[in-house]
């Protein structure tokens, strides 16, 4: 660890409880634990070699040998990531995937069926042409918005290209090329959002559901299977207003949640839990997702015209069969860590100003981890903080 320095392009962002680093050169964000944060501060203050080891060891009350070993490991990792420089570290490998700009549609893949339809959302008409099963899936989510007589203002196409990749074209211009269907869905959603909210300036887009109560927005971020859509459905039945599912779009500068009220996708294992509140689910249209046939709870069309709602609470749900419901306050850093580990988007390129604005919004909100096995208990716990 001779002569190690923090890289000039790396900034520590303002959040307590851990270390959040922004690398402007690679447009990447990294979350590390609190002990890594202390090591980083010592390094940034110019400590190195034995001085670094001894100060770190003395602060934590650990043997110097242990400190030396642990510091060597994290410095080697930081070196590989390009977060620090020093004679022992080669230049960091590129972390970002190379982009592609050439559209070359693979003719062999063009035999799939095309789903083509036109929707009108908030007065804006958009034509979709999406190939394969993916098209049928997306169409089922937008079904209640279809308007075949409308003259489209924008055309959105998804086509297969070479290999497993698909390309999204907006009015003929390539927007993204990827083999990751999650990215593709996100790009389609975002394109639609930008058309129905022209001139919007994004703060962040989070994977999750969102509801509102008396003007306060509750974000329910979480990966697929965490129980967020089912919890959102139960909260709606308890009188909350519906804001979004699958994607929580926060607008700059103050992080207001924009309405994105796609039908709530209730998976087979959850239908019983909300059957009493939603008897219509038994006959609701189905939707193929993650290998199962979910049922769609379709919100009223007026939900698309709802006003943006200020983010006040982030509640990270985790369904665990048989578990007693527990709601635990978590730090803003813990919330950021969970968001980074799932799906969050800060735009391209990521800017320090945008991430800092998001952290400020997060610091002004209250974050909780919710574990639940029974929906009624979960709703009661959410009500304790939101009402």
């Amino acid at each position: 660890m001779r002569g190690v320095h923090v890289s000039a392009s790396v900034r520590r962002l303002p959040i307590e409880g851990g270390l959040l680093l922004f690398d402007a050169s690679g447009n990447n964000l990294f979350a590390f634990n609190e002990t890594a944060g202390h090591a980083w501060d010592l390094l940034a203050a110019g400590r190195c070699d034995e001085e670094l080891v001894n100060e770190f060891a003395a602060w934590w009350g650990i043997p110097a040998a242990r400190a030396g070993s642990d510091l060597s490991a994290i410095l080697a990792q930081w070196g590989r990531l390009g977060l620090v420089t020093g004679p022992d570290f080669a230049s960091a490998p590129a972390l970002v995937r190379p982009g592609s700009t050439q559209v070359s549609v693979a003719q062999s893949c063009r035999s799939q069926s095309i789903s083509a339809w036109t929707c009108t959302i908030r007065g804006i008409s958009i034509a979709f042409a999406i190939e394969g099963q993916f098209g049928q899936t997306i169409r089922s989510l937008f079904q209640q918005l279809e308007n075949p007589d409308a003259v489209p203002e924008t055309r959105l196409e998804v086509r297969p290209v070479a290999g497993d990749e698909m390309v999204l074209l907006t009015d003929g211009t390539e927007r993204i090329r990827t083999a990751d269907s999650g990215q593709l869905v996100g790009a389609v959603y975002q394109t639609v959002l930008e058309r129905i909210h022209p001139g919007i300036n994004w703060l962040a887009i989070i994977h999750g559901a969102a509801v509102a109560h008396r003007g306060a927005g509750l974000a329910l971020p979480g990966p697929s299977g965490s129980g967020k859509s089912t919890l959102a459905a139960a909260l709606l039945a308890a009188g909350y207003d519906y804001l979004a599912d699958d994607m929580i779009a926060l607008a700059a500068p103050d992080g207001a949640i924009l309405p994105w009220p796609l039908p709530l996708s209730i998976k087979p294992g959850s239908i019983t839990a909300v059957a009493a509140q939603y008897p219509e689910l038994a006959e609701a249209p189905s939707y193929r997702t993650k290998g199962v046939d979910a049922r769609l709870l379709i919100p009223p069309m007026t939900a698309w015209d709802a006003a943006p709602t200020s983010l006040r609470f982030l509640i990270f749900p985790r369904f665990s069969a048989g578990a007693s419901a527990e709601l635990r306050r978590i730090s803003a850093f813990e919330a950021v860590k969970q968001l980074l580990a799932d799906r969050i988007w800060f735009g391209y390129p990521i800017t320090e100003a945008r991430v800092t604005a998001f952290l400020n919004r997060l610091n002004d909100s209250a974050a909780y981890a919710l574990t639940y096995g029974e929906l009624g208990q979960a709703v009661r716990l959410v009500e304790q903080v939101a009402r």
Partner: protein
Amino acid sequence: MSSVENTGPPVRPGDQDTDGMDEARRAALLRLAKYTAPAMLALLLSENAAHATTFA
């Protein structure tokens, strides 16, 4: 590399005699209990494509 023991009073996790413990020693014990090796918890790699998104 010098020894930590030379920089102050020894701090052991097994110390049970907390009566009369001064604040500095109490804080040092709390830090020691919280110690975990520095580690990465999560990362967000930027997409090298304008407007790319990363959620499912």
